[in-house]
């Protein structure tokens, strides 16, 4: 079962994606507690993409493919891209006392997913996440 969304940059729009995920899961008879980590992944992926989406257009494309076994999340923006290898792995001890307490998105997406891929260039960034629904 597949769901495609194009989300504009407006407050809390990631909740639309999460609601879509939950509805698909319910339709397939997947227990709510099995999609908990997928909810967090969607929140992080969409929030991150919208923040870096740029303005031409200020939207992100989201696609879910859901089975009773797994969810595949695809999030694409048209921002200016970045070098994922240059992103420092955040550490809580370093964040305490630092003026920048953010920057957890990539670490969380990598840690919570069963497969995480990112492609980024001057035309934008695409994130693909596979999450087993154990």
């Amino acid at each position: 079962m597949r769901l495609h969304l194009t989300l504009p940059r407006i407050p809390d729009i990631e909740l639309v994606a999460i609601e879509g995920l939950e509805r698909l899961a319910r339709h397939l008879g997947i227990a709510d507690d099995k999609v908990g980590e997928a909810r967090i992944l969607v929140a992080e992926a969409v929030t991150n993409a919208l923040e870096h989406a740029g303005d031409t257009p200020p939207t992100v494309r989201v696609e879910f493919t859901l089975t009773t076994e797994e969810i595949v999340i695809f999030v694409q923006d048209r921002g200016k891209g970045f070098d994922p290898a240059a992103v420092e792995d955040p550490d809580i001890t370093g964040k305490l006392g630092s003026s920048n307490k953010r920057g957890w998105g990539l670490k969380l997406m990598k840690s919570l997913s069963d497969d995480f891929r990112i492609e980024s260039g001057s035309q934008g960034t695409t994130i693909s996440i596979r999450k087993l629904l154990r």
Partner: protein
Amino acid sequence: MDQQFTLTKEVRGECLIVTTSGYINNVGGEAIASECGAHFANGIQDVILNLEYSKVVNSIGMSYIIEIIERLQETGGTLVFTNLDAAVEKMLSIMGLFKYARKEATVADALSALGRKGVGHESR
């Protein structure tokens, strides 16, 4: 699931209990930090953050919680998370928050744990 963020608060002695409902993003996180900040000025030493009704959080929201931990470190206070959804608990664990904050199953457990610490928040 209604994700509109709201919070309620209760003061027990020198402990502030904040119970949230709905999505904790930048707005929710800032509201929690602001609530705590107002109470720190009134002598609050510890904070219990009950997330029973918040099943979706994002890391930007949690960055405000790191601010609260930072503030509590300055005064020797403690932040205790309670009623954590399994996914939220895993997220906080990945972020390393439990190195500097505690978790307990319920608010009553948290009050008891803080009492054992010698803070003495329980009602007489």
